[in-house]
């Protein structure tokens, strides 16, 4: 077994285990902490795929940003500790059936024919390549993204306005 296979196996166990804990944990705050572990595991998978920049973005935006926002949401809507935080799942059988059927479908499609086994050489430093692509070929989507974030900011302020 190569080093990549060992690292991939370990990351898969962490990722799938923490993802299951996110959806099955009884305590919402614990589920959030498991989500942080799952997002960090995803950053590890990005590192395995030679995408160091994306791993850093993943850690900063997801594991840093989203987790903080969700903590605030939990604090506002529930008490951080105590029995109000417990949450139950409903219709577990139906949800599991839907997820299992979709998973079987996807795995069948993926396994239908052999996929690439080798990675082509990337042209130069990947971070540099991404940076140049964002500011040349994809500059219009990049500016639209800035517009979207401004709209999101205004929307969040509108939602958070004090009661009249």
């Amino acid at each position, binding site marked *: 077994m190569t080093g990549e296979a060992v690292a*991939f196996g370990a990351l*898969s166990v962490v990722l*799938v285990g923490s*993802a*299951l804990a*996110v*959806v099955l944990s009884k305590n919402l705050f614990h589920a959030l902490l498991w989500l942080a572990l*799952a*997002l960090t595991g*995803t950053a590890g*998978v*990005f590192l395995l795929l*030679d*995408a160091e*920049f*994306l791993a850093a*973005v*993943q850690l900063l*935006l*997801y594991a840093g*940003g*989203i987790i903080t*926002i*969700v903590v605030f*949401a*939990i604090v*506002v809507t529930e008490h951080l500790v105590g029995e109000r935080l417990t*949450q139950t*799942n*409903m*219709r*577990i059988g139906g*949800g599991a059936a*839907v*997820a299992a059927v*979709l*998973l079987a479908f*996807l*795995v069948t499609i*993926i396994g239908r024919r052999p*996929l690439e*086994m*080798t990675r*082509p050489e*990337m*042209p130069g430093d*990947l971070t540099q*390549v*991404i940076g140049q*692509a*964002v500011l040349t070929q*994809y500059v219009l989507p*990049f500016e639209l*993204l800035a517009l*979207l*974030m401004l709209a*999101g900011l205004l929307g*969040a302020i509108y*939602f*958070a306005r004090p009661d009249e």
Partner: protein
Amino acid sequence: MGLQPYLILSAVVFCIGLFGVTTRRNTIGILLGVELMMNAVNINLVALARFNGSSAGMVFTVFTICITVTEAALGLAIVILLFRTRRTVMADHLDLLKG
């Protein structure tokens, strides 16, 4: 190691997220499931881009990460607004549109 294990890992994480979205009662729990599904999509994009030898998929991943963060912030703002008006975040109590 080929492309296949990455795609299967991403499919497994996506289906776990789907299970969470369909079974959670708390709206914040549903949003956590959506985050897992978005995460699986990002793994898929990066793996396909890496094995295709092009950087376009990675650029798209930068965009999807930013859009997901905006979506999460707005979704949680809606959840907090719902809590202020209805005093609950349980999805089965939010039946205002039910005829």
